[in-house]
Protein backbone atom coordinates (compact mmCIF):
# COMPACT_ATOMS: atom_id res chain seq x y z
CA UNK A 1 0.00 0.00 0.00
CA UNK A 2 1.35 3.39 -0.92
CA UNK A 3 1.42 6.11 1.66
CA UNK A 4 0.66 9.79 1.31
CA UNK A 5 2.87 12.26 3.14
CA UNK A 6 0.44 12.41 6.02
CA UNK A 7 1.01 13.06 9.64
CA UNK A 8 -0.14 10.47 12.13
CA UNK A 9 -0.89 13.36 14.46
CA UNK A 10 -3.89 14.34 12.36
CA UNK A 11 -6.98 12.23 12.32
CA UNK A 12 -10.38 12.10 10.75
CA UNK A 13 -13.29 13.87 12.40
CA UNK A 14 -15.66 11.26 11.02
CA UNK A 15 -18.56 11.00 13.44
CA UNK A 16 -21.41 8.83 12.15
CA UNK A 17 -23.25 7.70 9.04
CA UNK A 18 -26.60 9.30 8.27
CA UNK A 19 -29.30 7.90 6.01
CA UNK A 20 -30.15 10.37 3.26
CA UNK A 21 -33.67 8.97 3.15
CA UNK A 22 -35.01 8.30 6.65
CA UNK A 23 -32.41 10.18 8.69
CA UNK A 24 -31.43 7.17 10.79
CA UNK A 25 -27.89 7.28 12.20
CA UNK A 26 -25.35 4.44 12.18
CA UNK A 27 -21.97 4.12 13.92
CA UNK A 28 -19.16 4.91 11.53
CA UNK A 29 -16.91 2.39 13.26
CA UNK A 30 -18.97 -0.48 11.86
CA UNK A 31 -19.19 -1.71 8.28
CA UNK A 32 -22.32 -0.34 6.64
CA UNK A 33 -23.41 -0.23 3.04
CA UNK A 34 -26.77 1.50 2.55
CA UNK A 35 -29.55 2.07 5.04
CA UNK A 36 -31.10 -1.26 6.03
CA UNK A 37 -34.15 0.58 7.33
CA UNK A 38 -35.23 2.20 4.06
CA UNK A 39 -32.62 1.24 1.41
CA UNK A 40 -31.35 4.75 0.75
CA UNK A 41 -27.71 5.86 0.49
CA UNK A 42 -25.78 6.59 3.68
CA UNK A 43 -23.68 9.74 3.95
CA UNK A 44 -20.70 10.28 6.24
CA UNK A 45 -21.03 12.99 8.85
CA UNK A 46 -18.19 14.74 10.65
CA UNK A 47 -17.65 16.62 13.83
CA UNK A 48 -17.42 19.88 11.92
CA UNK A 49 -17.35 21.91 15.09
CA UNK A 50 -14.17 20.10 16.05
CA UNK A 51 -12.65 20.78 12.64
CA UNK A 52 -13.67 24.43 12.93
CA UNK A 53 -11.98 24.75 16.32
CA UNK A 54 -8.79 22.89 15.54
CA UNK A 55 -8.14 23.19 11.80
CA UNK A 56 -8.01 26.64 10.23
CA UNK A 57 -8.59 26.35 6.51
CA UNK A 58 -5.12 27.69 5.74
CA UNK A 59 -3.45 24.50 6.98
CA UNK A 60 -4.96 22.50 4.16
CA UNK A 61 -3.45 24.77 1.53
CA UNK A 62 -0.01 24.36 3.08
CA UNK A 63 0.03 20.59 2.69
CA UNK A 64 1.25 18.49 -0.23
CA UNK A 65 -1.09 18.46 -3.20
CA UNK A 66 -3.72 15.76 -3.53
CA UNK A 67 -7.06 14.99 -1.93
CA UNK A 68 -5.54 13.49 1.20
CA UNK A 69 -4.53 16.93 2.39
CA UNK A 70 -8.17 17.15 3.53
CA UNK A 71 -7.70 14.13 5.76
CA UNK A 72 -9.57 15.55 8.76
CA UNK A 73 -12.63 15.69 6.49
CA UNK A 74 -12.10 12.22 5.04
CA UNK A 75 -13.29 9.00 6.66
CA UNK A 76 -10.05 7.05 7.20
CA UNK A 77 -9.42 7.43 10.93
CA UNK A 78 -5.75 6.80 10.51
CA UNK A 79 -4.96 7.98 7.02
CA UNK A 80 -1.24 7.74 7.62
CA UNK A 81 -1.59 3.98 8.02
CA UNK A 82 -4.36 3.19 5.58
CA UNK A 83 -4.01 5.66 2.74
CA UNK A 84 -4.21 4.11 -0.73
CA UNK A 85 -3.14 6.89 -3.02
CA UNK A 86 -1.68 7.52 -6.42
CA UNK A 87 -1.69 11.30 -6.10
CA UNK A 88 -5.32 11.83 -7.08
CA UNK A 89 -7.06 15.16 -6.70
CA UNK A 90 -6.04 18.78 -7.20
CA UNK A 91 -6.97 18.51 -10.84
CA UNK A 92 -6.77 21.62 -13.04
CA UNK A 93 -9.47 24.27 -13.03
CA UNK A 94 -9.14 25.59 -16.57
CA UNK A 95 -10.47 28.96 -17.72
CA UNK A 96 -12.48 28.66 -20.93
CA UNK A 97 -11.69 32.15 -22.18
CA UNK A 98 -12.23 31.57 -25.88
CA UNK A 99 -15.51 29.77 -25.44
CA UNK A 100 -16.58 32.24 -22.82
CA UNK A 101 -15.99 35.11 -25.19
CA UNK A 102 -17.98 33.42 -27.93
CA UNK A 103 -20.83 32.68 -25.57
CA UNK A 104 -20.81 36.02 -23.81
CA UNK A 105 -19.81 34.49 -20.48
CA UNK A 106 -17.04 36.20 -18.56
CA UNK A 107 -16.43 33.55 -15.91
CA UNK A 108 -16.50 30.10 -17.48
CA UNK A 109 -14.32 27.27 -16.14
CA UNK A 110 -13.77 23.58 -16.63
CA UNK A 111 -12.74 21.30 -13.77
CA UNK A 112 -10.81 18.56 -15.51
CA UNK A 113 -11.17 15.29 -13.66
CA UNK A 114 -9.57 13.49 -16.58
CA UNK A 115 -6.25 14.52 -15.05
CA UNK A 116 -6.65 12.06 -12.20
CA UNK A 117 -4.29 9.05 -12.13
CA UNK A 118 -6.75 6.59 -13.64
CA UNK A 119 -8.24 9.17 -15.98
CA UNK A 120 -11.47 9.93 -14.19
CA UNK A 121 -13.05 11.25 -11.00
CA UNK A 122 -13.50 7.63 -9.94
CA UNK A 123 -9.89 7.66 -8.73
CA UNK A 124 -10.85 10.01 -5.91
CA UNK A 125 -13.70 7.86 -4.70
CA UNK A 126 -11.81 4.64 -4.99
CA UNK A 127 -8.75 5.98 -3.16
CA UNK A 128 -10.86 6.91 -0.17
CA UNK A 129 -13.26 3.96 -0.25
CA UNK A 130 -10.46 1.41 -0.55
CA UNK A 131 -8.54 3.10 2.25
CA UNK A 132 -11.57 3.06 4.49
CA UNK A 133 -12.43 -0.53 3.54
CA UNK A 134 -8.92 -1.59 4.49
CA UNK A 135 -9.17 0.24 7.78
CA UNK A 136 -12.49 -1.43 8.56
CA UNK A 137 -10.92 -4.84 8.04
CA UNK A 138 -12.72 -5.59 4.79
CA UNK A 139 -10.86 -8.14 2.68
CA UNK A 140 -13.01 -8.51 -0.42
CA UNK A 141 -14.67 -5.88 -2.56
CA UNK A 142 -17.08 -6.19 -5.47
CA UNK A 143 -18.49 -3.76 -7.96
CA UNK A 144 -20.38 -3.59 -11.22
CA UNK A 145 -19.16 -1.00 -13.65
CA UNK A 146 -17.64 0.26 -16.83
CA UNK A 147 -14.07 1.08 -17.86
CA UNK A 148 -13.48 4.08 -15.60
CA UNK A 149 -14.71 2.22 -12.55
CA UNK A 150 -12.73 -0.87 -13.43
CA UNK A 151 -9.50 1.05 -13.95
CA UNK A 152 -9.89 2.81 -10.62
CA UNK A 153 -10.69 -0.43 -8.82
CA UNK A 154 -7.68 -2.14 -10.35
CA UNK A 155 -5.35 0.72 -9.49
CA UNK A 156 -6.31 0.93 -5.83
CA UNK A 157 -7.56 -2.47 -4.67
CA UNK A 158 -4.62 -4.60 -5.72
CA UNK A 159 -1.88 -2.52 -4.05
CA UNK A 160 -4.05 -2.48 -0.91
CA UNK A 161 -4.08 -6.29 -1.07
CA UNK A 162 -7.84 -6.46 -1.27
CA UNK A 163 -9.47 -9.22 -3.24
CA UNK A 164 -11.39 -7.39 -5.96
CA UNK A 165 -14.16 -8.62 -8.22
CA UNK A 166 -15.93 -6.67 -10.96
CA UNK A 167 -18.90 -7.39 -13.17
CA UNK A 168 -18.63 -5.80 -16.58
CA UNK A 169 -20.67 -5.97 -19.73
CA UNK A 170 -19.51 -8.56 -22.22
CA UNK A 171 -19.11 -5.89 -24.88
CA UNK A 172 -16.17 -4.39 -22.93
CA UNK A 173 -13.08 -4.35 -25.14
CA UNK A 174 -10.74 -7.30 -24.75
CA UNK A 175 -7.79 -4.99 -24.10
CA UNK A 176 -9.60 -3.32 -21.20
CA UNK A 177 -10.54 -6.66 -19.68
CA UNK A 178 -6.96 -7.85 -20.01
CA UNK A 179 -5.67 -4.63 -18.42
CA UNK A 180 -7.96 -5.08 -15.44
CA UNK A 181 -7.20 -8.77 -15.04
CA UNK A 182 -3.46 -8.14 -15.17
CA UNK A 183 -3.89 -5.85 -12.18
CA UNK A 184 -5.23 -8.79 -10.21
CA UNK A 185 -8.94 -8.05 -10.38
CA UNK A 186 -11.35 -10.89 -11.06
CA UNK A 187 -13.45 -9.79 -14.04
CA UNK A 188 -16.76 -11.44 -14.73
CA UNK A 189 -18.38 -10.56 -18.03
CA UNK A 190 -22.15 -10.48 -18.03
CA UNK A 191 -24.23 -10.64 -21.15
CA UNK A 192 -26.38 -7.55 -21.54
CA UNK A 193 -25.33 -5.96 -18.25
CA UNK A 194 -27.16 -2.68 -18.35
CA UNK A 195 -26.18 -0.83 -15.27
CA UNK A 196 -23.92 -1.09 -12.31
CA UNK A 197 -26.62 0.49 -10.22
CA UNK A 198 -28.85 -2.53 -10.26
CA UNK A 199 -27.78 -5.29 -7.97
CA UNK A 200 -28.39 -8.77 -9.23
CA UNK A 201 -25.28 -9.85 -7.34
CA UNK A 202 -26.41 -8.28 -4.12
CA UNK A 203 -28.26 -11.13 -2.66
CA UNK A 204 -27.11 -14.52 -3.80
CA UNK A 205 -23.60 -13.67 -4.94
CA UNK A 206 -22.38 -11.11 -2.46
CA UNK A 207 -20.67 -13.73 -0.25
CA UNK A 208 -19.14 -11.36 2.24
CA UNK A 209 -17.81 -8.97 -0.38
CA UNK A 210 -18.14 -5.23 0.24
CA UNK A 211 -20.17 -3.70 -2.57
CA UNK A 212 -18.48 -0.58 -3.94
CA UNK A 213 -21.14 0.19 -6.55
CA UNK A 214 -22.37 3.77 -6.73
CA UNK A 215 -24.09 4.87 -3.52
CA UNK A 216 -24.07 1.30 -2.18
CA UNK A 217 -21.48 2.43 0.35
CA UNK A 218 -20.82 5.85 1.90
CA UNK A 219 -17.12 6.41 1.21
CA UNK A 220 -16.60 7.04 -2.49
CA UNK A 221 -18.66 10.20 -2.18
CA UNK A 222 -16.16 11.34 0.45
CA UNK A 223 -13.30 11.13 -2.00
CA UNK A 224 -15.25 12.83 -4.75
CA UNK A 225 -16.43 15.67 -2.55
CA UNK A 226 -12.86 17.00 -2.51
CA UNK A 227 -13.61 18.35 -5.99
CA UNK A 228 -15.89 20.79 -4.21
CA UNK A 229 -13.28 21.74 -1.61
CA UNK A 230 -10.78 22.42 -4.39
CA UNK A 231 -13.26 24.56 -6.30
CA UNK A 232 -14.04 26.70 -3.27
CA UNK A 233 -10.37 27.09 -2.44
CA UNK A 234 -9.51 28.04 -6.03
CA UNK A 235 -12.31 30.60 -6.05
CA UNK A 236 -10.97 32.26 -2.90
CA UNK A 237 -13.47 30.52 -0.68
CA UNK A 238 -16.52 31.51 -2.66
CA UNK A 239 -18.77 29.04 -4.41
CA UNK A 240 -19.64 29.08 -8.09
CA UNK A 241 -23.03 30.32 -9.23
CA UNK A 242 -23.68 27.35 -11.47
CA UNK A 243 -22.20 23.85 -11.50
CA UNK A 244 -22.92 21.71 -14.55
CA UNK A 245 -22.57 18.00 -13.79
CA UNK A 246 -22.86 15.16 -16.29
CA UNK A 247 -25.17 12.80 -14.43
CA UNK A 248 -25.36 9.04 -14.65
CA UNK A 249 -25.43 7.78 -11.08
CA UNK A 250 -25.10 11.38 -9.96
CA UNK A 251 -22.13 10.84 -7.68
CA UNK A 252 -20.32 14.05 -8.62
CA UNK A 253 -23.45 16.14 -8.17
CA UNK A 254 -24.17 14.68 -4.75
CA UNK A 255 -20.50 14.90 -3.76
CA UNK A 256 -20.24 18.58 -4.72
CA UNK A 257 -23.44 19.40 -2.88
CA UNK A 258 -22.08 17.62 0.20
CA UNK A 259 -18.77 19.48 -0.02
CA UNK A 260 -20.46 22.87 -0.31
CA UNK A 261 -22.81 22.05 2.57
CA UNK A 262 -19.89 21.10 4.78
CA UNK A 263 -17.90 24.21 3.84
CA UNK A 264 -20.84 26.38 4.72
CA UNK A 265 -21.25 24.61 8.07
CA UNK A 266 -17.53 25.06 8.74
CA UNK A 267 -17.89 28.79 8.21
CA UNK A 268 -15.05 28.79 5.69
CA UNK A 269 -16.91 30.57 2.89
CA UNK A 270 -16.49 34.25 2.21
CA UNK A 271 -19.90 34.62 0.63
CA UNK A 272 -23.23 33.05 1.38
CA UNK A 273 -24.35 32.43 -2.18
CA UNK A 274 -25.12 28.83 -3.05
CA UNK A 275 -24.67 27.34 -6.49
CA UNK A 276 -27.46 26.16 -8.72
CA UNK A 277 -26.85 22.57 -9.77
CA UNK A 278 -27.40 21.36 -13.31
CA UNK A 279 -27.79 17.63 -13.94
CA UNK A 280 -26.99 16.77 -17.54
CA UNK A 281 -28.12 13.50 -19.07
CA UNK A 282 -28.15 12.01 -22.53
CA UNK A 283 -31.44 12.25 -24.36
CA UNK A 284 -31.47 8.47 -24.71
CA UNK A 285 -31.24 7.93 -20.95
CA UNK A 286 -32.65 10.82 -18.98
CA UNK A 287 -34.58 9.54 -15.95
CA UNK A 288 -33.56 12.46 -13.74
CA UNK A 289 -34.65 14.97 -16.39
CA UNK A 290 -38.00 13.26 -16.80
CA UNK A 291 -38.63 13.16 -13.06
CA UNK A 292 -37.43 16.74 -12.58
CA UNK A 293 -39.74 18.02 -15.30
CA UNK A 294 -42.63 16.12 -13.73
CA UNK A 295 -41.71 17.49 -10.28
CA UNK A 296 -41.52 13.90 -9.06
CA UNK A 297 -39.57 12.88 -5.99
CA UNK A 298 -38.13 9.73 -7.57
CA UNK A 299 -37.38 8.40 -11.05
CA UNK A 300 -39.04 5.81 -13.18
CA UNK A 301 -36.68 3.18 -14.51
CA UNK A 302 -35.65 4.39 -17.99
CA UNK A 303 -36.36 1.79 -20.64
CA UNK A 304 -34.45 1.30 -23.91
CA UNK A 305 -31.54 3.36 -22.63
CA UNK A 306 -29.03 4.33 -25.31
CA UNK A 307 -26.35 6.94 -25.90
CA UNK A 308 -22.82 7.08 -27.25
CA UNK A 309 -21.73 8.38 -23.84
CA UNK A 310 -21.78 4.96 -22.21
CA UNK A 311 -21.08 6.20 -18.68
CA UNK A 312 -24.34 8.12 -18.80
CA UNK A 313 -26.34 4.93 -19.25
CA UNK A 314 -27.85 4.61 -15.80
CA UNK A 315 -31.58 3.88 -16.10
CA UNK A 316 -32.16 4.76 -12.46
CA UNK A 317 -29.69 6.05 -9.92
CA UNK A 318 -29.75 4.55 -6.45
CA UNK A 319 -29.65 8.16 -5.20
CA UNK A 320 -32.40 9.50 -7.44
CA UNK A 321 -34.41 10.99 -4.59
CA UNK A 322 -31.41 12.82 -3.18
CA UNK A 323 -30.39 14.15 -6.59
CA UNK A 324 -33.87 15.47 -7.26
CA UNK A 325 -33.97 17.11 -3.84
CA UNK A 326 -30.62 18.81 -4.44
CA UNK A 327 -31.81 20.13 -7.80
CA UNK A 328 -35.01 21.46 -6.28
CA UNK A 329 -33.37 22.94 -3.19
CA UNK A 330 -30.63 24.67 -5.18
CA UNK A 331 -33.09 26.03 -7.74
CA UNK A 332 -31.22 23.93 -10.25
CA UNK A 333 -32.33 22.21 -13.40
CA UNK A 334 -32.00 18.94 -15.28
CA UNK A 335 -31.19 19.02 -19.00
CA UNK A 336 -30.92 16.32 -21.63
CA UNK A 337 -28.73 16.59 -24.70
CA UNK A 338 -28.63 14.66 -27.95
CA UNK A 339 -25.67 12.49 -28.92
CA UNK A 340 -24.90 14.80 -31.84
CA UNK A 341 -24.62 17.72 -29.42
CA UNK A 342 -22.16 15.74 -27.27
CA UNK A 343 -19.93 15.13 -30.26
CA UNK A 344 -20.12 18.75 -31.39
CA UNK A 345 -19.29 20.01 -27.90
CA UNK A 346 -16.35 17.61 -27.65
CA UNK A 347 -14.99 18.94 -30.96
CA UNK A 348 -15.54 22.53 -29.90
CA UNK A 349 -13.62 22.16 -26.64
CA UNK A 350 -10.74 20.65 -28.58
CA UNK A 351 -10.79 23.31 -31.30
CA UNK A 352 -11.33 26.41 -29.19
CA UNK A 353 -9.62 25.51 -25.94
CA UNK A 354 -7.32 22.63 -26.92
CA UNK A 355 -8.86 20.52 -24.18
CA UNK A 356 -9.67 16.84 -24.73
CA UNK A 357 -12.70 15.70 -22.78
CA UNK A 358 -14.83 12.59 -22.73
CA UNK A 359 -18.25 12.57 -24.36
CA UNK A 360 -19.66 12.61 -20.84
CA UNK A 361 -17.66 15.72 -20.03
CA UNK A 362 -18.70 17.31 -23.30
CA UNK A 363 -22.30 16.91 -22.15
CA UNK A 364 -21.70 19.78 -19.73
CA UNK A 365 -20.89 22.19 -22.57
CA UNK A 366 -23.75 20.86 -24.69
CA UNK A 367 -26.08 21.59 -21.78
CA UNK A 368 -24.63 25.07 -21.35
CA UNK A 369 -25.75 26.00 -24.85
CA UNK A 370 -29.27 25.09 -23.84
CA UNK A 371 -29.02 27.05 -20.61
CA UNK A 372 -27.91 30.13 -22.55
CA UNK A 373 -30.84 29.73 -24.94
CA UNK A 374 -33.16 29.56 -21.97
CA UNK A 375 -31.44 32.61 -20.44
CA UNK A 376 -30.95 30.45 -17.37
CA UNK A 377 -27.38 31.68 -16.90
CA UNK A 378 -26.24 35.28 -16.75
CA UNK A 379 -23.14 36.72 -18.51
CA UNK A 380 -21.16 37.44 -15.38
CA UNK A 381 -22.02 34.31 -13.42
CA UNK A 382 -19.25 31.99 -12.32
CA UNK A 383 -19.96 28.77 -14.16
CA UNK A 384 -18.16 25.45 -13.67
CA UNK A 385 -18.35 22.67 -16.23
CA UNK A 386 -17.26 19.30 -14.92
CA UNK A 387 -15.29 16.98 -17.17
CA UNK A 388 -15.64 13.64 -15.47
CA UNK A 389 -13.05 11.67 -17.40
CA UNK A 390 -10.36 11.61 -20.05
CA UNK A 391 -12.34 9.21 -22.27
Amino acid sequence: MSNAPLSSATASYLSYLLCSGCGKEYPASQVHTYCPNCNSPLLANYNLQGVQQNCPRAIFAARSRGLWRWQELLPAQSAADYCATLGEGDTPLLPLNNLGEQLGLSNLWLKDEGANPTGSFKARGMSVAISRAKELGIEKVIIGGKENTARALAAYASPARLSAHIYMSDDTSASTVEEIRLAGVKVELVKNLETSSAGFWEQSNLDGQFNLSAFREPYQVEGQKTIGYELAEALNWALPDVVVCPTGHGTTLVSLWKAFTELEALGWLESSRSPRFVAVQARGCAPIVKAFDAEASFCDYWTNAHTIASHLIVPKSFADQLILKILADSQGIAISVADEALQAAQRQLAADEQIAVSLEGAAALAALYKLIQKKWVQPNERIILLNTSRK
Partner: protein
Amino acid sequence: MGNNVLYIEDNPDNMMLVRRILESRGYRLLEAQNGLTGLSVAESQPIDLILLDINLPDIDGYEVARRLRRSSKAALAHIPIIAITANALKGDAEKALAAGCDVYMSKPINIRELAARVAGFLPE
Protein backbone atom coordinates in the same frame (compact mmCIF):
# COMPACT_ATOMS: atom_id res chain seq x y z
CA MET B 1 -60.95 0.67 -4.04
CA GLY B 2 -59.71 -1.83 -1.45
CA ASN B 3 -56.36 -2.17 0.23
CA ASN B 4 -55.39 -5.78 -0.44
CA VAL B 5 -51.88 -6.17 -1.82
CA LEU B 6 -50.53 -9.51 -3.01
CA TYR B 7 -46.73 -9.87 -2.94
CA ILE B 8 -45.34 -12.75 -4.97
CA GLU B 9 -41.78 -13.21 -3.71
CA ASP B 10 -39.64 -16.12 -2.55
CA ASN B 11 -37.17 -14.10 -0.50
CA PRO B 12 -38.33 -13.90 3.13
CA ASP B 13 -36.24 -10.80 3.89
CA ASN B 14 -37.89 -8.84 1.12
CA MET B 15 -41.27 -10.14 2.19
CA MET B 16 -40.70 -8.98 5.76
CA LEU B 17 -39.54 -5.53 4.62
CA VAL B 18 -42.54 -5.00 2.37
CA ARG B 19 -44.92 -6.26 5.04
CA ARG B 20 -43.52 -3.70 7.45
CA ILE B 21 -43.83 -0.91 4.89
CA LEU B 22 -47.35 -1.67 3.78
CA GLU B 23 -49.02 -2.82 6.99
CA SER B 24 -47.80 0.30 8.78
CA ARG B 25 -49.67 2.28 6.15
CA GLY B 26 -52.91 0.36 6.56
CA TYR B 27 -52.65 -2.11 3.69
CA ARG B 28 -53.38 -5.81 4.03
CA LEU B 29 -50.60 -7.98 2.61
CA LEU B 30 -51.19 -11.40 1.12
CA GLU B 31 -48.15 -13.55 0.44
CA ALA B 32 -47.18 -16.08 -2.18
CA GLN B 33 -43.74 -17.69 -2.34
CA ASN B 34 -43.88 -18.76 -5.99
CA GLY B 35 -45.57 -17.87 -9.23
CA LEU B 36 -48.20 -20.57 -9.39
CA THR B 37 -49.30 -19.97 -5.80
CA GLY B 38 -49.44 -16.27 -6.60
CA LEU B 39 -51.72 -16.89 -9.55
CA SER B 40 -53.94 -19.07 -7.41
CA VAL B 41 -54.21 -16.44 -4.67
CA ALA B 42 -54.88 -13.69 -7.20
CA GLU B 43 -57.70 -15.69 -8.77
CA SER B 44 -59.31 -16.77 -5.52
CA GLN B 45 -58.99 -13.74 -3.26
CA PRO B 46 -60.01 -10.10 -3.54
CA ILE B 47 -56.80 -8.34 -4.60
CA ASP B 48 -56.31 -4.68 -5.47
CA LEU B 49 -52.63 -4.55 -6.41
CA ILE B 50 -49.85 -7.05 -7.07
CA LEU B 51 -46.15 -6.73 -6.28
CA LEU B 52 -44.34 -9.21 -8.44
CA ASP B 53 -40.80 -10.48 -8.11
CA ILE B 54 -39.36 -11.55 -11.46
CA ASN B 55 -36.98 -14.30 -10.30
CA LEU B 56 -39.30 -16.91 -8.87
CA PRO B 57 -38.55 -20.57 -8.22
CA ASP B 58 -41.16 -22.00 -10.62
CA ILE B 59 -42.46 -19.79 -13.44
CA ASP B 60 -40.83 -16.38 -13.76
CA GLY B 61 -42.55 -13.09 -13.06
CA TYR B 62 -42.97 -12.29 -16.75
CA GLU B 63 -45.04 -15.43 -17.20
CA VAL B 64 -47.03 -14.67 -14.04
CA ALA B 65 -47.87 -11.23 -15.43
CA ARG B 66 -48.91 -12.62 -18.79
CA ARG B 67 -51.19 -15.23 -17.14
CA LEU B 68 -52.71 -12.62 -14.85
CA ARG B 69 -53.60 -10.45 -17.84
CA ARG B 70 -55.20 -13.43 -19.61
CA SER B 71 -57.02 -14.68 -16.51
CA SER B 72 -60.70 -15.54 -16.64
CA LYS B 73 -61.12 -13.34 -13.56
CA ALA B 74 -61.88 -10.10 -15.34
CA ALA B 75 -60.53 -7.84 -12.59
CA LEU B 76 -57.01 -9.17 -13.15
CA ALA B 77 -56.86 -7.79 -16.67
CA HIS B 78 -56.42 -4.29 -15.28
CA ILE B 79 -55.11 -4.84 -11.76
CA PRO B 80 -51.99 -2.73 -11.09
CA ILE B 81 -48.83 -4.85 -11.19
CA ILE B 82 -45.51 -3.52 -9.89
CA ALA B 83 -42.57 -5.64 -11.03
CA ILE B 84 -39.66 -5.79 -8.60
CA THR B 85 -36.41 -7.36 -9.63
CA ALA B 86 -32.74 -7.55 -8.79
CA ASN B 87 -31.87 -8.08 -12.44
CA ALA B 88 -29.55 -5.63 -14.16
CA LEU B 89 -29.76 -6.83 -17.72
CA LYS B 90 -30.71 -4.91 -20.80
CA GLY B 91 -34.31 -5.51 -21.67
CA ASP B 92 -35.54 -6.69 -18.28
CA ALA B 93 -37.64 -3.59 -17.67
CA GLU B 94 -38.96 -3.67 -21.21
CA LYS B 95 -39.88 -7.36 -20.84
CA ALA B 96 -41.70 -6.70 -17.59
CA LEU B 97 -43.73 -3.87 -19.10
CA ALA B 98 -44.45 -5.88 -22.26
CA ALA B 99 -45.68 -8.78 -20.11
CA GLY B 100 -48.31 -6.50 -18.61
CA CYS B 101 -46.66 -4.92 -15.58
CA ASP B 102 -47.44 -1.25 -14.99
CA VAL B 103 -44.27 -0.24 -13.16
CA TYR B 104 -40.73 -1.64 -12.93
CA MET B 105 -38.67 -1.25 -9.77
CA SER B 106 -35.21 -2.57 -9.04
CA LYS B 107 -33.97 -3.98 -5.76
CA PRO B 108 -33.07 -3.04 -3.14
CA ILE B 109 -36.56 -1.67 -2.68
CA ASN B 110 -36.59 1.92 -1.53
CA ILE B 111 -39.38 2.07 1.00
CA ARG B 112 -40.48 5.64 0.32
CA GLU B 113 -40.68 4.97 -3.39
CA LEU B 114 -42.58 1.74 -2.92
CA ALA B 115 -45.01 3.38 -0.51
CA ALA B 116 -45.54 6.26 -2.92
CA ARG B 117 -46.09 3.96 -5.89
CA VAL B 118 -48.56 1.77 -4.01
CA ALA B 119 -50.37 4.87 -2.75
CA GLY B 120 -50.50 6.13 -6.34
CA PHE B 121 -52.71 3.15 -7.19
CA LEU B 122 -54.36 2.64 -3.80
CA PRO B 123 -54.59 5.90 -1.86
CA GLU B 124 -53.95 5.33 1.85
